[in-house]
């Protein structure tokens, strides 16, 4: 072995401004919560709105997390993602309606079992649908953004119409399982049980996703693939298989988000996924393409801001998220924590 010549390594220390800049996105959610507290004034109203905003944010994150990875890994713009949300909601809610005997009794065990069964059914169906969607619709248009938009929007429309054929054109109203109805009172604020559950569930899913991405080899491959797919392939990994796995997982998560959103709204429609896609795209864009952490922070901000603004100035609620996206993009044109640079 040849001895290495003298070479005193030095760590390229980041300047303080860069360190602060990197940490800034992490501070945005606490800052927004604090601003909400100062603007709303009433502690109980603020607490209710905050939990509601966090619950909404968690559900949007679940729907958006798969899309941001698909975008990052294979540079695919999938407008059809909304179809998985709708299909997930219909399959899950149908399962819950079929299990009425379990959801209508005040038994935590039976209620949770029914919700779990609904979630598993929704994720299996949307995962399988995602596999077919990738194979038939997305695969022929890799590398062609305009075609991707056209064919995935087409796929979304076809699947929405199929929902009308299978379940009928009317919206379906549902009630939550007995033990998820009602609210708990804390510090004078009434907090819906279901929203608390959504917050806990979303947080658990985010932690699980981070663990998979940071601690497992498949997570390493996904993170590396988002940055430089060509190099991952040159190391010997079949990135296509990884991409299919991420696409199927992302579709299944969208289905899960659809069930949760359906239970949150207590009504489902074939167009609900399409409507949610506006928020989902805002989250993916402000979070930074390919970034799960960015999507998480972005989703929480979208959920919180929408709830605070709807309380403070209802007329502005509709534009609050567009305003948020504009502000974030003026500050960071590639989103808060981009993994993939603009192509």
């Amino acid at each position, binding site marked *: 072995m040849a001895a290495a010549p003298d070479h005193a390594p030095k760590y390229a220390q980041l300047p303080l401004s860069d360190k602060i800049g990197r940490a800034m996105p992490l501070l945005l959610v606490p800052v927004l919560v604090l601003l909400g507290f100062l603007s709303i004034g009433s502690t109980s109203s603020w607490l209710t709105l905050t939990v509601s905003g966090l619950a909404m944010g968690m559900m949007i994150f679940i729907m958006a997390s798969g899309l941001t990875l698909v975008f990052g890994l294979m540079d695919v713009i999938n407008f059809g993602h909304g179809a998985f949300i709708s299909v997930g909601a219909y399959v899950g809610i149908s399962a819950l309606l079929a299990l009425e005997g379990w959801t209508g009794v005040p038994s935590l065990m039976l209620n949770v079992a029914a919700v779990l069964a609904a979630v598993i059914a929704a994720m299996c169906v949307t995962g399988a649908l995602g596999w077919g969607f990738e194979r038939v619709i997305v695969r022929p248009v890799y590398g062609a953004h305009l075609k991707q938009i056209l064919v995935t929007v087409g796929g979304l429309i076809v699947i929405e119409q199929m929902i009308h054929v299978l379940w009928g054109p009317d919206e379906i109203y549902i009630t939550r399982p007995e033990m998820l109805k009602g609210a708990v009172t804390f510090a004078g604020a009434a907090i819906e049980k279901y929203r608390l559950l959504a917050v806990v569930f979303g947080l658990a899913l985010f932690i699980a996703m981070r663990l998979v991405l940071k601690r497992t080899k498949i997570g390493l491959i996904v993170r590396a693939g988002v940055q430089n797919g060509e190099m991952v*392939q040159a190391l010997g990994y079949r990135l296509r298989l990884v991409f299919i796995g991420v696409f199927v997982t992302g579709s299944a998560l969208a289905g899960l988000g659809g069930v949760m959103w359906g239970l949150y709204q207590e009504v489902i429609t074939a167009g609900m996924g399409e409507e949610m896609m506006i928020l989902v795209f805002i989250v993916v864009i402000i979070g930074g393409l390919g970034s799960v952490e960015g999507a998480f922070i972005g989703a929480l901000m979208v959920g919180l801001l929408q709830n605070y603004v709807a309380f403070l100035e209802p007329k502005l609620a509709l534009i609050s998220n567009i305003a948020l996206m504009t502000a974030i993009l003026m500050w960071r044109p590639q989103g808060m924590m981009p993994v993939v640079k603009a192509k």
Partner: protein
Amino acid sequence: MSDPILELSGIHTDIAQYHILQGVDLAVPRGGVTMLLGRNGVGKTTTLRTIIGHWQSKAGRIRFNGTEITTLPTPARARAGIGFVPEDMGIFSDLTVEENMILAAASGPLDPARLEWIFAAFPPLRTFWKSEAGNLSGGQKQMLSIARAMAEERQLYLIDEPTKGLAPAIISTMAGALRDLKKKGASILLVEQNFSVAKALGDTAAVMDDGRIVWAGEMAELAGDSGLQERLMGLSMEAH
């Protein structure tokens, strides 16, 4: 001479509307360093990228270890034993040095003995093992890029301008590591603009011009003939 480890016959590659490789014929001998030389823009990088499969050739054949790999996808070529170090280094900057190396060991966990060998060649990688690769200096990134290719035993290494823009001390480290690889029996196809490195490392050389190999032979022959250098590359190595 034994069978070449890599043979390109009549390779044509297009990038968009540009016809870059126009019939490349190249044989890389087993167990030595072959320098791929030529002026900027003659197709050296495209040749390496075509061999690893990032660009698909539209005509011609590529044989590696006696097996045709022309239509194989990139991961299959890598698993067959070809390591690739691209010109831009291809570092995963958001991953740590450790994570970059773990990923480089595609067929299983990193071999500790091999890792020690890599650390001996590139000491800074041990120092910054837990640091994000994006925070390394240019030279350290290049070390990581080559170390990644060395993480598993490969029969052929395709290395694109590993000394570009580096300080002399680091160039010397790179050259030492490549010599070690050669001693271990690996074959190397090296694109290099630094002619003193090319002269020191190369056993054989191939010179490209206009998307073709225009000369191939012993490196010593090319290094010793300034007229030939002038004719093939428009400059003399004596100037370097």
